[in-house]
């Protein structure tokens, strides 16, 4: 098995966990997914799969969602490889996925094609470059729905234009604990961007992980949207760093980090929510050099400890207590 993208270490990784670029595209000659019946959807899947298979530098595994178990599909959503919406209804939908999981293409989600490129750390330019290469390859085989005035046409008219959503996932424990996050969310929304919990919403975001994305897709080029996102992301990262410095002036911060580490190291039962709260503190400590742990290791743990993903590591369904027990055991082993 080849190394997954999240096992790498990226730039700015004290704050920026990962970067993703999404592109929405539709075939010109087929009705949008909501207008297709099952055989038509399967036909669209096979047309796009054919085009993806001809791309030389990338090889994709193809899976019809119907052939996967519920836990497998939810795990894909927990790993952010498919959307929760995609996981909720599996008929006629399929996924193209590279071995390292850095490139995924959802077929027949809200649009015929939802291409996603995901890299560790702060890598907007690299992720966009990869996404454009794959998009170009696909467009040399497929005729995309496009209009000179409106750009790429999508099923949802609010998404048309570039059809691009660029995101960075930020770890913002200091901005959360100093209560600056709510104000930041409001400010960012005025700048044509959105900041929301990566797992869970608003101030209740699990693990203090937030996704910063562009929301404007028309009247702005992909390049300009990315530059805008980049500059805001770097400003937020700088704010988080200075908030961390303030936070570490109080001895209680170090104490909380060690306590979190202690609980993770010795707990016998731990649920997702508690795990995410504690691992967030541990990550803060690891970045500071207090805790001797690699960030990539922590990120991998955050992904592997989600409920459905953890159930997949054993070959049978687990009840809640069994899952919490297994989670505690796996966390102990890693720490």
């Amino acid at each position: 098995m080849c190394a997954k993208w999240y096992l790498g270490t990226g730039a700015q990784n004290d704050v920026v966990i990962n970067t993703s670029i999404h592109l929405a595209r539709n075939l010109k000659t087929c009705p949008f997914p909501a207008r297709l019946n099952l055989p038509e959807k399967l036909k669209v899947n096979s047309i796009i799969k054919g085009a993806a298979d001809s791309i030389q530098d990338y090889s994709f595994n193809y899976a019809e969602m119907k052939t996967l178990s519920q836990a497998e599909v939810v795990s894909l959503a927990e790993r952010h490889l498919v959307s929760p919406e995609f996981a909720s209804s599996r008929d006629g939908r399929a996924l193209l996925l590279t071995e390292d999981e850095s490139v995924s293409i959802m077929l027949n989600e809200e649009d015929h094609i939802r291409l996603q490129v995901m890299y560790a750390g702060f890598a907007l330019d690299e992720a966009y470059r990869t996404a454009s290469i794959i998009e170009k390859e696909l467009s040399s085989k497929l005729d995309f729905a496009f209009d000179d005035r409106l750009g790429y046409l999508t099923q949802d008219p609010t998404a048309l234009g570039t059809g691009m959503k660029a995101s960075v996932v930020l770890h913002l424990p200091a901005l959360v604990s100093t209560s600056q996050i709510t104000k930041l969310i409001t400010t960012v929304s005025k700048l044509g961007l959105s900041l929301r919990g990566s797992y869970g919403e608003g101030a209740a975001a699990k693990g203090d992980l937030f996704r910063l994305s562009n929301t404007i897709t028309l009247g702005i080029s992909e390049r300009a949207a990315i530059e805008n996102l980049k500059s805001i992301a770097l400003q937020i990262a700088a704010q988080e760093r200075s908030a961390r410095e303030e936070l570490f002036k109080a001895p209680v911060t170090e104490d909380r980090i060690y306590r979190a580490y202690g609980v993770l190291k010795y707990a016998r039962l731990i649920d997702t929510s508690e795990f995410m709260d504690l691992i967030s503190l541990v990550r803060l400590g690891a970045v500071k050099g207090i805790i001797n742990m690699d960030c990539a290791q922590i990120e991998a743990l955050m992904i592997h400890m989600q409920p459905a993903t953890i159930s997949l590591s054993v070959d049978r369904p687990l009840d809640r207590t069994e899952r919490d027990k297994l989670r505690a055991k796996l966390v102990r082993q890693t720490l």
Partner: protein
Amino acid sequence: MICQNCNKNDATLHMKRIINGRAAEVHLCSDCARSLGYGEAFSGFGLGFGHLLGELLSSNENGSANSMRCPACGKSFEEIAEDGKMGCAECYAVFYDRLLPTLNKIHGKTSYMGTKPQTSGNSAAPSISLDELKNALSEAIERQDFELAASLRDQINELVREGGAL
């Protein structure tokens, strides 16, 4: 705050919707938000809830009962306004003028500035030929979709009239 739907969990999704000047607040926990179809960050291209968009679309209509349907996929503007979803690429061309006010409201400006596909140069201006319409008409009759057939017949007549005037 407690979720309005299950009255059990803490609400983590707080939303203010303003529809035709009336504000309504929604507070939901993440489970209920998901089950009620409010997408999460991943699916958040644009607004993400069709109904809200639908209300925006229909608010631009002056009650004009126009039952024209897209000849490519058969969807009417009323149906688009209902679920907020376009039926196919051709819908944008067929309903362009009626969509424009809403697109302006959503996107602010409507001129596209992004990259173009290699085979560019197509436009949403109506580009359906008489033959295509006639084919669609006979298919609709075969399927006994008389509503679509009637709409197609009107469009064919219109095209023929325009052609005759030239």
